[in-house]
């Protein structure tokens, strides 16, 4: 490849002080990683995310009990050695259910974010690249999604499709793809004016090639940052709707649903209310900390200090 085709973000390359020899040879990815590594809270968040993912993958292999296994003899036990998070009225071990709930949370959040990228990336690329009428039609349609409060839109979609986790994933993805398309479009509009895109056009590269090979890699930074925040928001929306009875259905051990079911007995068994909430906080916090650090590393202009 001639250097003409170096599809590298010029801003990131320029950020490396040209005087220092070490930085000159680092790719933007390496630079971002260096910056990310320095942020301790971000590393803590990443470790928390890894833990969540491991627990989700481990599933019933690592839960101490069967998450849905009932045992009347230990009904409503307070947290103790045998059951660190206590048991519910069916004698189900809450720690096992919380761990299984991690899997549900992760499936819903990663599932909805991936689906939202599959929808939003192409829409944003096309809108940003072609502009004009195409862009107007796509973005005005997305405006309708923005015209609704998030939870309300999710509520309406799930209410009409029927309460289930799959429909919830679909609802969350529909909401997120509008955000993705908006961010991608804005970045594409600035990137497509860069010289390397012009160069690609000059050698008669096809539009699809230009978009996929040259523009897409350069708009990924904000998309990745946004996706991380979407992961935490998806966990929150899943928990909210399951709490309202419009997401996971019993006996699925979703955190939100567990919290909802606990309300009847919370004066006698407060642990059933407290722990699912802590699990939600842990997961949302994990992705938020990671997202903050990623944003600072990948997109320094947006950093909050």
């Amino acid at each position, binding site marked *: 490849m001639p250097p003409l085709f170096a599809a590298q973000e010029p801003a990131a390359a320029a950020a490396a002080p040209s005087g220092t020899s070490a930085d000159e040879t680092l790719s933007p990815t390496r630079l971002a990683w260096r910056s990310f590594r320095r942020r301790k809270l971000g590393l803590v968040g990443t470790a928390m995310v890894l833990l969540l993912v491991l627990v989700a993958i481990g599933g019933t292999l690592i839960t101490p009990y069967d998450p849905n296994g009932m045992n009347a003899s230990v009904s409503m036990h307070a947290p103790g050695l045998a059951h660190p998070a206590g048991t519910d009225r069916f004698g189900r071990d809450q720690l096992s259910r919380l761990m299984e709930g991690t899997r549900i949370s992760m499936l819903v959040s990663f599932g909805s974010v991936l689906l939202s990228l599959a929808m939003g990336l192409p829409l944003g690329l096309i809108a940003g690249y072609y502009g004009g009428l195409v862009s107007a039609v796509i973005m*005005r*349609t997305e*405006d*309708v999604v923005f*015209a*609704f*409060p*998030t*939870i*309300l839109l999710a*509520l*309406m*979609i799930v*209410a*009409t*499709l029927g309460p289930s986790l799959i429909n919830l994933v679909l609802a969350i993805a529909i909401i997120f793809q509008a955000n993705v398309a908006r961010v991608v479009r804005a970045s594409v509009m600035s990137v497509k004016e860069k010289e390397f895109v012009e160069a690609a056009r000059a050698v008669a590269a096809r539009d699809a090639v230009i978009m996929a090979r040259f523009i897409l890699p350069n708009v990924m930074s904000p998309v990745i940052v946004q996706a991380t925040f979407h992961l*935490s928001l998806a966990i*929150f929306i899943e*928990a*909210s709707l399951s*709490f*309202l*009875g*419009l997401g996971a259905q019993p006996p699925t051990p979703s955190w*939100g649903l567990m*919290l909802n079911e*606990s*309300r009847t007995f*919370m*004066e006698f068994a*407060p642990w059933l*209310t*407290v722990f*699912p*909430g802590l699990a*939600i*906080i842990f997961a*949302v*916090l994990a992705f*938020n*900390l990671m997202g903050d650090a990623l944003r600072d590393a990948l997109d320094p202009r947006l950093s*909050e*200090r």
Partner: protein
Amino acid sequence: MLRYILLRLLGLVPVLFGVSVLVFVAIWVIPGDIVDIMMGDEVAQSEKAMQRLRAQLNLDQPIWMRYLLWVGNALRGDLGVSMISGEPVLDQILERAPVNLQLVLIAMVFIIVIGIPLGTLAAYKQFTWVDNSIRVGAIFGYVIPNFWLATIAVLIVSLYFPRATVLDYVPFSKDPIANIKGLLIPGFVLALTTLSYIVRLTRSTVLDTLRLDYVRTARAKGLGERVVMSTHVLKNSLIPVVTVLGIQVGVLIGGLVLTEEVFMLPGIGRMILLSIEARDFMVLAGGVLFLGVVFVLVNLVIDILYAFLDPRITY
């Protein structure tokens, strides 16, 4: 400015059209035959009654005609009648709206009165223990789910203050003071996420402003810290905060559904939830459409306000 306002009002038309189409499609088209769904459980439904209901809901008309009829009625303030109680949907909404308005206003007061000063204080004392504790508090405040906090609040009140009436809903007309007292905790719970976000945002915008030259000039010419902070720094830092507050109204409206559910408040959010349970699509459509339109209008007002606040913006 007038031109800008007119343009924005014109821009409302396609958005409101889109909102109405989305609600219409989601509620009246996707689920399939509403009459079947509604009547599904009842065994002895005569064919005639179903026909009548279909005609009443215009289900015998082509789809575009149904949309036009629905929107036309909505524009004239007729959101239909509840399929369960027969009560007009708009009456139900207007009866419940004051609770929502109060909750959002109380939440806004908390956000502005606590959030902005805390954020400013954190920026002013950057990297001290004050700043650090405010930042940690804001991170946790941001990630605590409001429905969990609401549940814990109810739990604490019922465990330790069994006789307290802080969570009882009293209509405003009956006893205004008891009414507001009863809404303080729900209002705070509703506010917390946005409040924490505003603390972080205020902190970072104030820090940005503190670095600007004119702030140094103001200090150099011997102005007191109080004057510098209030007239030079805060005024200019708050512009982005106002915009974000507008967007956050959406978060508050979404949060209403959850807050009302846990605190058993008779607002529109609860009405929507009940209508989902009861499959009362007329009420569901009316409620969602109403909140969507309110949200769009609030954003419009904030946008116009923004133009007033920041003279650099010209249209």
